[in-house]
């Protein structure tokens, strides 16, 4: 019996990443088609929503049976307008006068992707260590709070100021990761619940701070901090014409660092062993509890850096909405990227692009940014269930059904 079961068990991809090439292969190989089809399926769902929402389609639907082509062409126009707007808002602006203007959307996408990559990396580390960290949102907020505070409160020389603010981001995020890690290690409290709850605690903490005079711009009663000093801002990457800043490069470096950590360091080996089988890891002399704490601190650090990028690079002031929905989007980024750094960078850029297209969608196609949420979540749902994608697209199923884990 046990022999039979063992033989039919699915060989997980988990550890093929042991060789360097698979770092780049992990996303493309085997799952590549599923990922592509999931994106296609999500765009179709998005298109359906666009059609439903479009006024001229609704009008044409009123006389669908007398002139069906009217509705179909209206629908076609609505969908192509929407996706054209999305393309122009996130990659290349065809209406721009110059090349430098035309690629501005792409640089915006990269700017949006930086915090998603940071936080997604943190979640990915947690997922692979068997920790379901839903708390990136809170960690982003705490990172933003401390980074922002250092940024507007102190006035320090160039370089040192930014470095200190970034350290603030790290400390804030790490603290908010440390708490659930410690509670899990000492009391067994489930990290899903604790991190969800800490998200809200962080949110209210931020709201309270921004109510304090010391966190508000002088002479203002708005829940918005004074602007971050120039010396604490991430420098622009491509000059002042573009919003893209060095935070994006830092995110790419972090991705490389996380790859090294997880694939090439003894820590990462331990993290993965603990994630896959904590009791075997214990018997191999690994300290599982310490691992939980470390992993959560690292996850929090990366999410905190995401908050830092937002406040020091993109928003340049602390507001109640500083974290947006980065923490939740990062979950989808990590899942889409299958918790691998390369995958997370790709997924982060994709979702960053979707986000960046928001204003253009609104202006050109009169569609709210919320459609991005739908596309994002549908992609992740489909990717999590390859058999469903195969069923929808009538693909032959592989001999071994791959089980989906975070």
């Amino acid at each position: 019996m046990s022999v039979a079961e063992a033989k039919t068990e699915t060989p997980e991809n988990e550890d093929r990443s042991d060789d360097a090439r698979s770092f780049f292969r992990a996303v493309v190989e085997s799952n590549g088609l599923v990922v592509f089809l999931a994106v296609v399926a999500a765009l179709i769902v998005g298109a359906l929503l666009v059609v439903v929402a479009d006024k001229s389609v609704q009008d044409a639907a009123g006389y669908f049976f007398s002139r069906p082509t009217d509705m179909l062409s209206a629908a076609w126009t609505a969908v192509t307008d929407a996706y054209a707007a999305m393309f122009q808002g996130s990659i290349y602006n065809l209406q721009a006068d110059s090349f430098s203007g035309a690629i501005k959307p792409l640089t915006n996408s990269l700017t949006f992707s930086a915090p998603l990559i940071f936080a997604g990396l943190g979640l990915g580390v947690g997922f692979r260590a068997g920790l379901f960290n839903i708390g990136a949102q809170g960690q982003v907020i705490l990172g933003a709070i401390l980074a922002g505070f250092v940024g507007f409160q102190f006035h320090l020389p160039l370089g040192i100021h930014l470095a200190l603010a970034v350290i603030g981001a790290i400390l804030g995020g790490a603290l908010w990761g440390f708490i659930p890690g410690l509670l899990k290690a000492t009391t067994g409290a489930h990290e899903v619940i604790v991190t969800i709850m800490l998200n809200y605690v962080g949110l209210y903490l931020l709201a309270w701070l921004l109510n304090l005079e010391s966190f508000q711009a002088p002479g203002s009663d708005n829940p918005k901090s004074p602007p971050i000093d120039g010396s604490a801002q991430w420098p622009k990457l491509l000059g002042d014409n573009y919003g893209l800043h060095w935070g994006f490069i830092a995110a790419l470096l972090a991705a490389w660092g996380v790859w090294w950590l997880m694939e090439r360091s003894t820590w990462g080996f331990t993290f993965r062993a603990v994630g896959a089988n904590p009791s075997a890891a214990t018997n191999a002399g690994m300290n599982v509890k310490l691992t939980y704490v470390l992993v959560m601190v690292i996850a929090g650090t990366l999410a905190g850096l995401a908050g830092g990028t937002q406040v020091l690079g993109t928003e340049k002031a602390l507001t109640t909405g500083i974290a947006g929905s980065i923490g939740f989007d990062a979950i989808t980024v990590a899942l889409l990227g299958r918790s691998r750094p390369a995958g997370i960078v790709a997924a982060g850029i994709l979702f960053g692009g979707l986000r960046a297209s928001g204003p253009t969608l609104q202006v050109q196609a009169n569609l709210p940014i919320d459609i991005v949420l739908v596309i994002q979540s549908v992609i992740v749902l489909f990717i999590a269930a390859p058999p469903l994608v195969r069923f929808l697209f009538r693909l032959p199923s592989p001999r071994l059904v791959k089980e989906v884990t975070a």
Partner: protein
Amino acid sequence: MKLELRGITKKFGDFVANDKIDLTVEPGTVHALLGENGAGKSTLMNVLFGLYDADGGEILVDGEVVNFAGPGDAMRAGIGMVHQHFMLVHPFTVAENVMLGHEQLASNRLLDVEAARRRVLEISDRFGFNVDPDAVVEDLSVGAQQRVEIIKALSRDANVLILDEPTAVLTPQETDELLDIVGQLRDSGTSVVLITHKLREVQAVADTITVIRLGKVVGTALPTASQSELATMMVGRDVTMAVDKPKAKPGDVVLEVTSLTAMDENGLTTLDDVSLEVRAGEILAIAGVQGNGQTELAEAILGAVKATSGSVTLDGEEMLGRSIKSALNSGIGFVPEDRTVDGMVATFTIENNLVLDLIDQAPFSSHGNIDVEAIESNAQDKIAQFDVRTTSSKATAGSLSGGNQQKVVLARELSRELKLLIASQPTRGLDVGSIEFVHQQIVAERDKGVAVLIVSSELDEVVALADRIAVMYHGKIVGVVPPDTDRNTLGLMMAGAHEEEAA
């Protein structure tokens, strides 16, 4: 009721677990299904019970073809099953477990718990089970849980009762009681299918014996057949029960355990004032029914279970209070009893499993940086040395058969310089070939001068491997005896009798 299986075939992927199996259970008989671990016995019974869909063949009840879509159908047809891993809902009471699935309702349309209680008491009294219907199952001993399982099947008026490896968790005396019950059931007209790999039990109680090997029926036999005939049929070649080993040359005391006491998380004693010593170059085997503290003893020496008092010394150095890491580094090798849960990471490659506890040491890493090539070449060596059957060292450990998984665990544990090797249930679930290999490795380790501590609930294994036997019962060492002590004495000691009383 007469039960027939004709040409049952069940495949898992390319693996044929059951290959055209025929089996007939006559009414009112005890039919033993004998076979090695992995021979396909449980698979066959799961097909019969409707848990698996067969890929071929048919099941007949009293001459009529039946189709079981699920266990519910099988039970309605009068088939009951006591699974090797009990199918009891732990937080439920005995009565709730027994009524589950065929609940009687009271006049208010809610559960009639009283009726279920009466039913439990009635069956319990009939067979002298002494089971309290209101007890919560998780508080019961393993033996009592098994009786609950039997009550569960009987309360559904089972005409055929399948017992899957029922004695694995019982003392010899409890085993005898169970075999008595089997006899009573037969006399009351219930047929029993007894799935086992233990020859003694088969001879004691079976009316008919069917032997299966590698998923095929290799023959039938009568209980009068000799043990060696049955064993040869089961394994497919002559087997010697004994392990070929030279006499031990015990050296200095390596492991000394003194008054070791430990508790579980509920504050109940698991180890009660345990003292023993193991010398270099000898094998001390701990015999006992599972759950009498052997697992905790092994884990307490390793440091995985915290002791509340006492001492454990290795070469005179105190080990209590140290981390597992430091225990491993000071020369303890540990083969856990459940290798898939505690001994390896199934989703990791064989390569990585072979360095699971060595990853932070040279040559596999330096300054936290992993050396992939060193890990690869280590794997090549170990796979050759331990004859691990695999297509690639990059295959996952989970894709290996049980025997090969155990070889990987053993290869890893033996790759350090050991002073003490602790192996719990080292051959559980393995085929005979792997069992022999593992036994040879353990003896070889002993002959290198390592102190060896074996924990096994298989008396055959204990007797075959041990230079001395320590018997544990309820967290205590009942006595330490030589390996030629007779089985009956050992059995009584496993039930708590002291050596003098037992002999």
